């Protein structure tokens, strides 16, 4: 229905800007309905300006900036109608160290109200998590879940190995 969509859209728009400015520590983001008179079918344009830059087409954003902007929008939508459970597969892959820590600060807050599962290779994300499961393929071609404690030791071993 028109008014339901309109109300939801406004909420998402507000949330998007709020999460964006938290993840980018500044800047501004917006959502624009391309056809104001036909909101039930109109396309939605995304505007995003990291701090210190001038507003340009989002195609010009860097790989990491695009990922962070997409994450801000997804969280913005999620806030309107949070699902009890969320599975994210390597959405942090393009983020550098500084952005990982801003991302995990927001992620941890969301994880207080819903269960979040994130598949990740990133040390910062792993450190921010409450629980960790390791998956291995000792026997080739067959996956096995390893105990959390073992995974924790594995991470420690990796950390010592790379320092």
């Amino acid at each position, binding site marked *: 229905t028109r008014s339901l969509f309109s109300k*939801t*859209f406004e909420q998402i728009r507000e949330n998007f800007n709020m999460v964006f400015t938290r993840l980018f520590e500044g800047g501004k983001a917006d959502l624009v309905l391309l056809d104001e008179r036909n909101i039930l079918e109109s396309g939605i344009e995304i505007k995003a300006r990291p701090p210190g830059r001038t507003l340009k087409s989002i195609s010009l954003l860097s790989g990491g900036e695009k990922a962070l902007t*997409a994450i801000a929008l997804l969280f913005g939508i999620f806030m309107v109608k949070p699902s*009890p*459970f969320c599975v994210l597969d*390597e959405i942090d892959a393009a983020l550098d160290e500084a952005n990982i820590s801003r991302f995990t600060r927001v992620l941890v807050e969301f994880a207080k109200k819903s*269960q979040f599962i994130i598949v990740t290779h990133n040390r910062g994300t792993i450190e921010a998590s409450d629980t960790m499961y390791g998956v291995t393929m000792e026997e080739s071609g067959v996956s096995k879940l390893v105990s959390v404690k073992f*995974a924790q030791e594995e991470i420690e071993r990796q950390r010592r190995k790379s320092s």
Partner: protein
Amino acid sequence: MYFKNLVMQGFKSFADETKLEFEPGLTAIVGPNGCGKSNISDAIRWTLGEQRPTALRLSKMEDIIFSGSEARKPLGMAEVSLTVTNEDKKLPIEFTEVTITRRLFQSGESEYYINKAPVRLKDIQELFMDTGLGSSTYSLIEQGKIELILSSKPEDRRFLFEEAA
């Protein structure tokens, strides 16, 4: 609503029965390339009623059954069960604990259960419909797909907004 556990058998690379207990808060799933992490996320998506093979990285749905390795024969069936608590009755069903099970046989036959009672796929999809866990959703993000919302056409990205409405 709270996710309790996931049990997989014969599902993609999880040939043996594997149980994953869910905890509150943030859970990280780690491991080397190709070990099976994304397959776990596929299992959750499949059990909730995903019907598009491409959303599960398959060319056809039967490819989801463990197809053997150097040391093992292919299996004849894939089965995944997802157990959730339903104290807050967020799921429109009487039970306080709900286990949904999905099976696919090599023959192409499928079976679906809610708390051991046979149901249709439609019943499972409708059960989760209002929770934000419907299949084209903002709460299950596939690997490599996060940027799609930015690069997609303005009309194509609407569905996520509509899902939240």
